[in-house]
């Protein structure tokens, strides 16, 4: 399988990328790790005349932690997320989730920016970013702006990013307390049948803060506010967990596909959310 012909660009600055996007509009796409984009190019499901490689833009790489805020450059790979001990100290849920993405070869090149910006509801990072209440940083012809991850996803592959913008980084507050990212998949390398990210902070036996989000259970990632409302203020006992699981499953809206019919997916979602809450509770 060979893609259709295109022009290749390798700018060395964000301004250079934005200027090329302005020049070529819909005919251009940026490429990071390329493991979502190249397969669809090979199948000729997309028509791209200008491919803009972000590999030469050094400022898009790296992890920094400053005053409790974690900022990860868009071109940081999943492998780098997994192997960063400082990131693991600040937000251990990232390593737990990243290790469940694809396979080793894909994780060496797959980037956090590509994973969150593509808008594929099957990707894990968008759900994880809902859990972390992350902020996305976008650069475009009118400068930079930020969008909350929880406001970013509109529908499958439709996001708040404009065509002439690129996502440059994600940021979020370092976490404390318990965490878990649980994922059910048919085999290594598969997308989730259901996945869930959970953060829990306990204070004197009572849950003082929580976050629950779902991956691949709707056409966007789902932040489960109703489940959070159940958990916060509770002792996270079996009754509260059962009620939170029900709230999370009610917030899901999966479609039937090769991973199973809707009822099955909702059932798996319940199992996964329950496991994630239990795991986060045991670490809180």
């Amino acid at each position, binding site marked *: *399988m*060979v*893609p*259709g*012909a*295109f*022009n*290749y660009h*390798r700018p060395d600055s964000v301004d250079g990328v934005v200027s090329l996007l302005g020049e070529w509009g819909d005919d251009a796409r940026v*490429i990071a790790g*390329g*493991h979502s984009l*190249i*397969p669809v190019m*090979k199948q000729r499901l997309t028509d791209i005349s200008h*491919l803009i*490689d972000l*590999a030469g833009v050094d400022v898009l790489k790296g992890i920094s932690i400053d005053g409790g805020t974690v900022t990860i450059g868009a071109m940081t790979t999943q*492998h780098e997320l997994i192997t960063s001990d400082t990131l693991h100290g600040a937000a251990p849920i990232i390593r737990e989730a990243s290790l469940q993405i*694809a*396979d*080793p*070869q*894909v994780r*060496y*090149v797959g980037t956090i920016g590509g994973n969150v910006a593509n808008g594929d509801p099957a990707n894990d990072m968008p759900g994880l970013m809902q859990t972390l209440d992350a902020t996305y940083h976008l650069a475009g012809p009118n400068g930079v702006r930020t969008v909350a991850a929880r406001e970013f996803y509109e529908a499958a592959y439709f996001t708040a990013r404009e065509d002439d913008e690129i996502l440059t980084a994600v940021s979020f507050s370092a976490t404390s307390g318990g965490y878990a990212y649980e994922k059910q998949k048919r085999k*290594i*390398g598969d997308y989730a049948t259901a996945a869930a990210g959970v953060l829990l902070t306990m204070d004197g036996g009572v849950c003082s803060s929580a976050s629950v989000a779902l991956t691949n259970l709707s056409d966007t990632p789902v932040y489960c506010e109703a489940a959070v409302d159940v958990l916060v203020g509770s002792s996270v006992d079996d009754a509260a967990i059962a009620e939170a699981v029900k709230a999370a499953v009610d917030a899901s809206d999966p479609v039937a596909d090769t991973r199973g019919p809707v009822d099955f997916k909702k059932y798996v979602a319940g199992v996964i959310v329950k496991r994630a809450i239990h795991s986060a509770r045991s670490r809180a």
Partner: protein
Amino acid sequence: MEKMHVKMTVNGKNVDLLTEPRTLLIHALREELGITGPHVGCSSSHCGACTVDMNGMSVKSCTVFAAQAEGADITTIEGLGTPDALHVLQEMFKEHHGLQCGYCTPGMITRAYRLLQENPTPTEEEVRFGIAGNLCRCTGYQNIVKAILEAAAKMNDMKESA
């Protein structure tokens, strides 16, 4: 589309390719450079038969454009050992019958090479997790895992006695 120059180092040799931007790295290696160790298996980023080592990472060369490899240092199975001087991994695959049809083997060994560079003393579980991006359709995984674990032990012995 206009062809472009791509310079990279492949198995220690500097090469300068003149190729189309859409040329995939696996095709550049096999068809333009005659390096046929990396195989085309699924051509859809699943099977890992096309795995090469690029700048210290195991990558599926069917899902990388040659243009993206500009300036890269690439090692294929041909760069790990020769028929007269096999790499320890190749020796162990031979000794433990870590291959049946052999189609996945170059990718398996190239991946295992990087895995052992990063983790010289892996557990069996770590080996299995580490080669999860490589499929063997003969399903001969038991002996592949055995060969990699034995290779790790041998490489560590060699390091100690060096």
